[in-house]
């Protein structure tokens, strides 16, 4: 598995796309930190990068990579290697590369300009999102045979989690605003990795606003150490679940 991951990493490093992504993140982070005198505001701007751009690049890159590596996977499947070994190896390789890009691109500037708990949480949520969206991209790549359909499905899933989902939640809140919805909202947020990541950062960033009446309920839940474990646990589920489904599909897949 690690051997396959190693070759995947070699292969990714040879293309310039990952390098470009790293540089992009690095430039954006550096620009935000150096142009903005207020550190907190840079973190806010970085947050939108982490919540939107990082998942988007993660799905697009992973899906494209997967279809480009189709030959390699075909080659591997005819070898004495288990299918789960192959897919997990691919995942590890992609995950390692993307995480490295994210940590260099965002983590290093963060360490230089804003080495605090806030920065740590932002890195944690960005890392979690990178992994879960790679996992989601693996799902659509394995489920769709056609490259265009696979990328389309990945983009659709990204759009769903990044935009549509919260709109649906808003709609639900609007329709049921007369009911007590604390628990429902926590459950709803758990069904979207981007919401989980966002809430993790919110607990550090908007603590003042969250002390208001309804916010306090969430602050109590997500702000506690149990809440952190819960959030990280759900993030982990969002990494493992799509990957596990991908492995199941891949085991039966005809190449």
């Amino acid at each position, binding site marked *: 598995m690690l051997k396959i991951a190693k070759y995947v990493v070699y292969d990714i490093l040879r293309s310039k796309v990952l390098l470009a992504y790293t540089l992009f993140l690095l430039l954006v982070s550096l620009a935000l930190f150096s142009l903005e005198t*207020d550190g907190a505001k840079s973190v806010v701007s970085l947050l939108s990068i982490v919540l939107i751009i990082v998942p988007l690049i993660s799905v697009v890159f992973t899906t494209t990579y997967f279809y480009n590596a189709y030959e390699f996977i075909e080659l591997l499947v005819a070898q004495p290697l288990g299918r789960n070994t192959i897919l997990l190896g691919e995942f590890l390789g992609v995950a390692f590369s993307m995480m490295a890009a994210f940590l260099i691109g965002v983590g290093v500037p963060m360490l230089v300009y804003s080495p605090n708990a806030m920065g740590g949480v932002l890195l944690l949520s960005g890392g979690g999102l990178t992994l879960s969206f790679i996992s989601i991209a693996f799902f659509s790549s394995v489920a769709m045979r056609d490259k265009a359909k696979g990328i389309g499905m990945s983009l659709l899933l990204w759009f769903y989690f990044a935009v549509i989902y919260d709109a649906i939640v808003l709609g639900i809140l609007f329709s049921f605003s007369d009911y007590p919805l604390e628990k429902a909202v926590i459950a709803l947020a758990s069904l979207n990795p981007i919401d989980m990541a*966002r809430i993790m950062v919110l607990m550090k960033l908007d603590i003042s*606003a969250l002390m*208001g009446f309804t916010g*306090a309920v969430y602050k109590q839940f997500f702000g506690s150490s149990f809440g952190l474990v819960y959030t990280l646990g759900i993030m982990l589920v969002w990494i493992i679940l799509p990957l596990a489904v991908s492995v199941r599909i891949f085991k039966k897949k005809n190449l």
Partner: protein
Amino acid sequence: MRYIFSLLLLVSILFCEAKVITLCNQCEIKELKQAIAVSKPFDTLLIKKGIYTCMNETINKPLTVIGENRPALDGQLKDEVLVVMSDHVNIIGIEIRNSKCGSMKDYSGLRVFKSKDVKIEDCVLFNTYFGIYLSDSKHILVKNCKSKGANYGNSDTGNGIHLWKCDSVQIEDCHLEGHRDGIYLEFAKHCFIQNNYCEKNFRYGVHFMFSDNDIYENNTFTNNGTGVAVMYSKGVHMFNNKFQNNWGDASYGLLLKDMSNGIINGNSFENNTIGVTMEGGTNMRFEKNNFTKNGYAMKVMANCRLDTFVRNNFAGNTFDASTNGELKENLFENNYWDKYEGYDLNRDKVGDIPYRPVSLYSVLVEQMPYAVMLMRSFTIDILNRAEKNIPSIVPETFVDDKPLMKMISQK
């Protein structure tokens, strides 16, 4: 005022044959009651270090009471400790402790009643129900005193310094902690409150009721239950105070209710759930204040009129403003808003397009509080932007037509 006092003291020492009566545990005079009884007006009582039982002792003539190495007067939780009922009394360097607690009467450590020209300095109040209780008095100075609320339980504690029907009271350099209200003023006029530090009071750091023409400046109010409240008062000026770290579902830095003609200048509101809440404010002027890192920088209710907000900084707040209707006749101008995304083509340092501090999302949260969980969502961002371009829900008159491009230095 202090100088007049000193002069009076000097005069009395020179011409009235004032003498010094010394109290100590081994002295002839061991109790304050005795000392007061034998003293003549304008005498000085010197209390040596030690603990003296003192229950509801009344100073009924002009005296100067000075503690040496801060002796303690102990009420033994049975009554009030010390009462002043005379003009020209000075109380300096004394600790007052263990007053009775009770809901029938506002027991206090030090009560000043119907007196003028009283000076209380360097005193420490400890475990008293009310700390210093001033009523029907004029020209009082409270300086460099410390009061820590009694441990009677959260709700059952009085105020640190309580003013009722007072005039020209000056409170400075005091530290008030763990009371119901740090400083409470009711029907108190012409008071001057400066350089105090009020923290961890269960209700308000400072609480004004029906108190007109007062000034407070350079105070710090931090971690109080719900912040600072100024209600039903006219002409209260607030300069260079710090309102910070008031967190809770009904917490704010500053609550203004039915206020008029106040000036709020050079204050900083930081890390509060709500920076300023204003209900029924008329002719209030907010200038050069800093609003930073609050949940809401300000909530201005629709019943506020003729108020002015100029040259304030709003930065790092989750929401800049919120309201409950259409604001009328209020002016927002030349403030700096860090969320402003306009441009300045003519380079006059003023943005060319107006800024609306009330976002669609803050209106939504007002109506469906659970939506607070969607804060900073991309979807919300899109909605806010859409609303900014085609305003339909956010109040149209809540607008800064001349937002500044750069933060203003308030110093």
